[in-house]
């Protein structure tokens, strides 16, 4: 019986909702079968900008957690000879006469909304972790000379929204570099022009 009752109440409720919906859609009407109601909706579109940083195709994992910083890439154990294959997965090593470059791609994806005349550029500069002299940043032709300075350098001009921009980050370890943990910070700045 209780099930029957519940079902009955459910049907009554559903019918009430249906009638309420129908009634709400109607305005006052006299001698007519139909009427219309106008709903005015307003919204202000604001400009917004967002930067996504993600693991590049075939690149080392870009992680974001409390233990690793905002975005972090661990290169593993590296050396100035580029030997031993001790670096982390998806880190490419290129050795030369003076040292070894460990590099990996990352994806920078700016996303904009509501821009009319404005565009955005992305620059890179060195942070202050202490080993920025070893850090390298560049496009696919990144090399031992792709150093990162404390003066911002434009890496992407008029970047299109939702475009995946592949950048390479890395460490160049000279043969004379002392052993120990190496940490470098790169600051990407997205600027509305």
């Amino acid at each position, binding site marked *: 019986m209780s099930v029957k009752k519940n079902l009955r109440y459910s049907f009554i409720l559903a019918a009430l909702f249906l009638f309420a919906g129908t009634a709400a859609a109607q305005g006052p009407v006299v001698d007519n079968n139909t009427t219309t109601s106008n709903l005015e909706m307003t919204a202000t579109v604001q*400009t917004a900008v967002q*930067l996504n940083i993600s693991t590049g195709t075939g690149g080392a994992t870009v992680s*974001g957690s409390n233990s690793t910083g905002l975005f972090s890439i661990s290169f593993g154990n590296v050396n100035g000879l580029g030997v031993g294959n001790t670096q982390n997965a998806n880190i490419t090593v290129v050795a030369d006469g003076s040292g070894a470059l460990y590099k990996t791609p990352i994806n920078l994806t700016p996303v*904009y909304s509501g821009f009319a005349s404005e565009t955005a550029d992305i620059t890179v500069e060195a942070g202050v972790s202490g080993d920025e002299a070893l850090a390298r940043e560049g496009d696919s032709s990144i090399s031992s000379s792709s150093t990162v300075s404390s003066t911002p350098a434009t890496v992407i001009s008029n970047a299109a929204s939702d475009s995946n921009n592949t950048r390479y980050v890395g460490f160049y370890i000279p043969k004379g570099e002392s052993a120990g943990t190496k940490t470098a910070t790169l600051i990407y700045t997205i600027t509305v022009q």
Partner: protein
Amino acid sequence: MRTDVSVGWQASNLLKVHLKMILMSFLKSLILSTCLCALLLCCFGNTQAQQNSIGVMPASVDARLRRGASHTQNFTLSNTTGTRLRFRCSVEDVWYDERNTRVTGRPGTLPRSASEWVQFSQPEVVIEPYSSVVVKAIVTVPQTAAGGYYTSPVFEAMPADPLKSAPASQDDIATTTIRVRFRGLMMFTTLDATEYNVEIMGGHVSPPTASSELEMQLDVRNRSTTHARVRGAFAILNSSGSLVGRGTIEEKRYLPGQRSNLRAGWSGGLPAGKYTSVITLSYDRVGIEPTTLSYELPLVVQ
């Protein structure tokens, strides 16, 4: 007979009980499946949300302000990462150099600076993972201000908590940390005491060829005391005055005193002959109706 009636009554009761059980089981399954679907949708939503991104809204502000008044501008800072972030909020001057490249400077060092008008309600704010926070910028316009003023709000994101030190077994690990900084743009125009004067200093039209489209360049200067968003349209008329082509000129922003080329293209073909390009540019003015400029450029197609 009594026994038969009793059996019949029991059978009827049994049928009812069975029906009730079936119905209850159906309702339970329905509730369970609904919950399962909701849970799956929720998990899917969370998976979708788990990308490393941070954002600022609005990135640019173009406001009309009364002299001597205060205005509050909200900025929403979003953190779609697994890291607890600290955002540092500050402002810096913004202007342009002789090559029309954006330059920045310390507050109060560049022309028409509004940096010293802006005060953030919180110079630093901590944002939990996958959440956002609204920061207020209070803008106080001096009574003596006239025209357009500019500043760049800067939001720098960094981990809020100290990083855990590397485990002993990973002493020689090399790590790159990436930080992100946003530089927005705030443009203010006073509601009165603003003068407008945008000029077309010259122009050039290159006729279309087999390999290139018609290209139009206009040398535009903004002599106004505030920025102007210049946009336009053009029509190409043949020697008898008939319309043979038309196009639009995309909007471009000019800061006070700024001079640069406005470019437009047209992909149609033109037979040899003499033509005239009629160009109209327009821009909005605070408190008064938009204005339009007209310009003509001759075009000869060989």
